[in-house]
């Protein structure tokens, strides 16, 4: 062969590539079909959410967190609320806890549906995309019914949730989850034993349990390698310690096992929602000592200098509480992995620093490890299998 044809080729994949799930740019050094090196470049969707939060009060920061992982905004909101609740020492009422758990699992199903839709589309199964979107639409409608928005819900509030759920909503949700397991079976009929699917996923992008832990992977991506770790089980928050569910674990750590884990999670989510609907207690939906929107006697009095602080923290004890703590960390099991919020606070009502531990960011870091040595076509399958959302990765 002519030696000139043997040189390595540099390929830019993204940021506009439809299969990179947003604006991820990968620079691939390929030799023929084999990927020699893979370097992810991120930051195309950077909006500076962490910095923005420093300028806003805790309550005002909440709508920002919707924009992290926009496919499961409810879970992001809950994560942020949990962190601030831990900081202020607020006990969330039981009913609010169950509502949060219920809607978080709905968000998980929603997010996994988008994942199976796009992942299958990337690998070449178009039909699954259509069916998954059909079912997601029903869930989005349920979200709209209770929160007033389909995607960016801003529904929880520090110390509880924003509005109560109606019986009509619960009935509709029940009907949905009754038929949903059948839908999951439908997706599986289409791809689970399909030989193309198996060839593309089995034994591709293998990462061992030890390596997965070392790379900091979490969520289904880690569980696919056979590590039993789930924030919901290990550090239960909201009502997760009051409901029963299993954590599906894979074995081989390849794309197929990660896919299998998520498919099983669909069923666990359904199980959790069912229990939440059955056990939903009566009672208030907001804690008494939650920071409130203050309503002074005369509205015009509010026109003062330090008005931001005035509005949200009107309680002396809360203020003292904030002073006692300097930093706090709380995490939730987002559909993609462990989503953590780390807040350093000073004595004002705004965070001194807010840091988001985004699973997508960590998973993008592990992408070169998964892709190098494989084929170009497998890069796409790998991106799909770690299920990243660039909004969360770039923040």
């Amino acid at each position, binding site marked *: 062969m002519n030696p000139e044809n043997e040189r390595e080729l540099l390929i830019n994949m993204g940021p506009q590539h439809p299969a990179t799930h947003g604006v991820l740019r990968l620079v691939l050094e390929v030799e023929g079909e084999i990927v020699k090196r893979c370097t992810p470049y991120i930051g195309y969707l950077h909006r500076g959410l962490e910095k923005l939060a420093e300028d806003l009060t805790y309550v005002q920061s909440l709508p920002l967190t919707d924009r992290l992982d926009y496919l499961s905004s409810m879970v992001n909101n809950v994560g942020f609320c949990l962190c601030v609740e831990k900081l202020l020492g607020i006990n969330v009422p039981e009913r609010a806890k169950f509502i949060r758990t219920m809607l978080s699992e709905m968000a998980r199903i929603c997010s996994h549906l988008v994942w199976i839709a796009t992942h299958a589309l990337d690998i070449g199964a178009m039909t699954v995309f259509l069916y998954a979107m059909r079912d997601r*639409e029903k869930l989005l409608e349920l979200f709209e019914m209770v929160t007033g928005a389909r995607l960016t819900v801003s529904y929880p509030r520090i110390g509880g949730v924003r509005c109560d759920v109606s019986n009509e909503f619960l009935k509709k949700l029940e009907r949905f989850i009754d038929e949903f397991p059948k839908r999951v079976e439908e997706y599986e009929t*289409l791809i689970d034993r399909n030989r193309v699917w198996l060839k593309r996923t089995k034994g591709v992008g293998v990462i061992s349990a030890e390596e997965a832990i070392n790379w900091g992977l979490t969520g289904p991506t880690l569980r696919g390698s056979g590590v039993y770790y789930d924030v919901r089980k290990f550090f239960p928050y909201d009502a997760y310690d009051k409901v029963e569910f299993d954590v599906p674990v894979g074995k081989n750590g390849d794309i197929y096992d990660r896919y299998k884990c998520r498919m099983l999670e669909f069923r666990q989510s359904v199980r959790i929602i069912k229990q939440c609907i059955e056990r939903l207690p009566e009672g208030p939906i907001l804690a008494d000592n939650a920071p*409130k929107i203050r309503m002074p006697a005369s509205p015009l009095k509010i026109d003062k200098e330090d008005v931001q602080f005035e509005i949200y923290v009107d309680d002396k004890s809360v203020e003292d509480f904030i002073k006692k703590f300097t930093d706090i960390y709380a995490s939730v099991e987002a559909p993609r992995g462990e989503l953590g919020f780390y807040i350093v606070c000073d004595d004002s009502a705004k965070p001194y620093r807010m840091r988001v531990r985004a699973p997508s960011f960590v998973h993008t870091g592990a992408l070169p490890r998964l892709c190098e040595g494989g084929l170009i076509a497998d890069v796409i399958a790998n991106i799909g299998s770690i299920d990243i959302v660039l909004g969360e990765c770039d923040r």
Partner: protein
Amino acid sequence: MKVKEILTKILLIEIFKGLALTLKMLFSKSVTVQYPFEKRNIHEGFRGRHALVRDPISGDDKCIGCMRCTTVCPSRCIHIKREKRENKMVVIDYIIDASRCVYCAYCVEACPVCALVLTEDYEYSSYERKGLIFNKEKLLKNWDEFSAKWPADYYFNKFWQPPGIDPSRWPKTKREQGPVPLKRGVEIKREVKNEQLPS
């Protein structure tokens, strides 16, 4: 076992199972909506285009210029121009930059007189940025457009009285806020006026 495996391989069983499913779907009811011609129902409390509630009695907006919505807005997109005239605060203009808004409805919750509302309209895209900057007139017009479509004679937004907060903490106006009569039936209007006069 071996024979069975080979048979499934040759006969493409799993592929035909999948095809059977898609064929079944072909004859099931369609779930898509032909959007511009056919619209799905929006649920109550959807957070869409902003509007200032038009007071059915005075015909003007109800804003008292307390600046609370401006303060609470996370994206700082509400701008209020006001003036002191004869010891009274008068709101000259009220501007919402909808292109910056994140549709959190905090402003609706914070308003003590329930003057602001996020309506259920969602079709207001614009070819230019200016079209998304709503001033007071535009906001009132948004309300008129919305109320013309509203099926009932009264309107109440679920974010006006934030649940969970003890009602005694709300200002009187917020506590007493009932459903707003829409300026449609003349009779409703007169009725409200009669009630208003003696007080």
